[in-house]
């Protein structure tokens, strides 16, 4: 009897578990369309809350469109998305990390937005061109932009009596100031405060712009040819090695790595470094930790400032029906409007891609520096195998920066291995 009751109870709960579904389906009303919209954010984060508000406003203005949100934190979002794409179950529109747009597009997951993008006033938005592939096609529409600039701690500068960075700074000026800002306050022979954070596992705020500033390059020819093995790139890495070694104004590779990938970006927020390259979103931890900070343009090197940018973008699934694709485009144009962009800018997460919103919504002391950097930026070498080739390359560059491999050898090997990754994918392809 007990067994039967248990079995019956179990079946009932199983049936309930099976019906606890919220899967997508037709909206039910004639002419109505259901759109699954994916984006990444922490639950209850201001970005999560605002996105839900914007979606509510959008659907109120477009009653025939029903939006189902699929939200997850960054890493988990893309983990799930890749499986969904493989299983033909991707959302119809989602927010993609800018560096992954071409990866998804090359695997046939994304709708070509080139014709739709032609219908908008290109002069009103930043970052449109950064999404164009080698054939001139566009698969993503910018949502928000990130570009590194020089963050500096005003309090530490004042305490050390060092003049704050200016737009004229060169790498020599940066090094001179960083030396003065490096302090060993407890006399244990190791600095407690470093002048500059040179190495980071995230190369966007580390060796990539420095290599470019020294006149080197990472990839050329439509981002299909790895070209980092040059005297200029070697000079850039030598400068970084000196900063972490003989000059001692930056924490070395081991010290930086020991903080972990996430914590490295809090070095500036915790006052362990007086200067650091940081993208726009790094203002958030700095403000959370109540750091009095300013931003300045990246210093000039022989090759310029080496500005690079990532444009996170809305993409539309190739599997979307024409009605869903139209609804997705409607959402994209709504989100790119001045009002939603201004509200998004208030979060402090990204540079608005709507130029009107950017001109008014960004803080007056930081906005112009970021906008100027964005205007001068190149892509971060995006192509269909960005994740793989940059991983191969970064592995060797990091070996050089850790002192495990001579710079020349690491760059030569890194270039060869990264090129192999690219060639393997594009072999026999014309696109």
């Amino acid at each position, binding site marked *: 009897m007990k067994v039967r009751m248990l079995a019956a109870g179990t079946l009932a*709960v199983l049936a309930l*578990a099976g019906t606890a579904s919220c*899967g997508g389906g037709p909206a039910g009303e004639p002419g109505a369309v259901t759109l699954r919209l994916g984006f990444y954010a922490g639950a209850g*984060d201001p970005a999560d809350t605002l996105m839900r508000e914007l979606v509510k406003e959008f659907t109120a203005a477009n009653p025939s469109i029903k939006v189902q949100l699929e*939200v997850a934190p960054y890493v988990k979002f893309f*983990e799930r998305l890749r499986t969904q794409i493989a299983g033909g179950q991707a959302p119809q529109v989602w927010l993609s990390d800018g560096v992954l747009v071409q990866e998804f597009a090359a695997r046939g997951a994304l709708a070509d937005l080139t014709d739709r993008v032609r219908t908008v006033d290109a002069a009103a938005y930043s970052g449109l061109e950064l999404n164009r592939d080698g054939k001139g096609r566009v698969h993503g529409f910018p949502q928000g932009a990130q570009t590194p600039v020089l963050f500096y701690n005003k309090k530490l500068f004042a305490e050390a009596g060092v003049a704050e960075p200016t737009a004229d700074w060169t790498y020599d000026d940066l090094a001179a100031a960083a030396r003065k800002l490096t302090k060993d306050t407890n006399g244990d022979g190791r600095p407690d405060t470093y002048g500059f954070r040179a190495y980071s596992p995230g190369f966007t705020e580390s060796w990539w712009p420095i290599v470019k500033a020294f006149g080197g390059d990472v990839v050329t020819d439509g981002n299909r040819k790895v070209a980092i093995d040059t005297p200029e790139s070697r000079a850039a890495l030598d400068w970084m090695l000196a900063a972490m070694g003989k000059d001692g104004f930056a924490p070395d590779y081991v010290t930086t790595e020991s903080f972990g990938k*996430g914590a490295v970006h809090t070095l500036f927020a*915790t006052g362990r470094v007086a200067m650091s390259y940081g993208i726009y979103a790094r203002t958030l931890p700095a403000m959370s930790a109540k750091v009095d900070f300013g931003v300045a343009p990246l210093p000039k090197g022989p090759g310029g400032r080496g500005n690079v940018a990532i444009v996170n973008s809305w993409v539309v699934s190739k599997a979307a029906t024409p009605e869903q694709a139209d609804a997705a485009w409607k959402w994209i144009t709504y989100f790119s409007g001045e009002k939603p962009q201004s509200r998004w800018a208030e979060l402090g997460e990204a540079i608005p891609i709507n130029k009107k919103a950017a001109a008014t919504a960004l803080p007056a002391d930081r906005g112009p520096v970021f906008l100027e950097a964005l205007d001068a930026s190149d892509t971060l070498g995006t192509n269909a195998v960005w994740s793989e080739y940059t991983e191969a390359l970064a592995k060797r560059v990091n070996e050089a920066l850790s002192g495990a491999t001579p710079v020349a050898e690491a760059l030569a090997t890194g270039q060869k291995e990264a090129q192999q990754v690219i060639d393997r994918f594009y072999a026999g392809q014309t696109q």
Partner: protein
Amino acid sequence: MRKTLSYLLVLSGAAVMLVPFLAALGNSLKSFAQYIQVPPVWVPDPVQWSNYAEVWERAPFGIYLANSLVIAVLAVIGNVVTSATVGHALARMRLPGKQALLTMALGTMMLPTVITIVPNFLLFRSLGWLDTLLPLIVPYWLATPIGIFLMRQTFLAIPRDFEEAAGLDGANPWQVFWRVHLPLAKPALATLAVFTFTTSWKAVLEPVIYLTSPENYTLPVGVLSLKGQWVGNDQLVTAAAMMSLLPMLVVFVLAQRYFVRGTMSAGLKG
């Protein structure tokens, strides 16, 4: 003297094992600024109890808890019932090719989950089970390799005399299984139940892939969903993780006696 030394050793071992737990507890009560402080501080100052309240405000943790409980309880029932049945058949019944079947079942243990996730996704999609709790429950009702192995070993260790005696008393094979073998296998069943509960409770990859609606999230997915991209919310994530530990701790304490006996006897063969 020897006893004191043993206690000292055990206590110092326990103290070492407690360090990460205490560090996590401390971190769960810090502000963000204190959480990222270098060098780290062990004792939060001030103690931020509000982190725990904020976790509940940010996400419907009651729903996540209920989902996790439904999944874990049904997974335990399913795995215990089916693994015991299959394990018994492999240990006690004459089946052609049963060794090959066992080898194949154990072989599937060698496959990492990431290898099977896409085929499983396609399967569950075709069954219409995506964004339901079924993909996280039903596989446990098909017996798991570790469960089959554990129960088979347990049933092999029971002397044949018992079933022969039961047979003389007129018991059929089902009655032998139900009235003789299963009661003797209680420690192993408890072990399997605890293993299944913890595996199901802390699963992350599958729930993240299969569940898209927050109302279907499990507790670990809910904990992870607090992780912000730019400001880590690590203190909140840690507070949520501490809370999610509690049910697992309760289950372990309740089944501890059987669990220890079960793990000790799992490798024995009669």
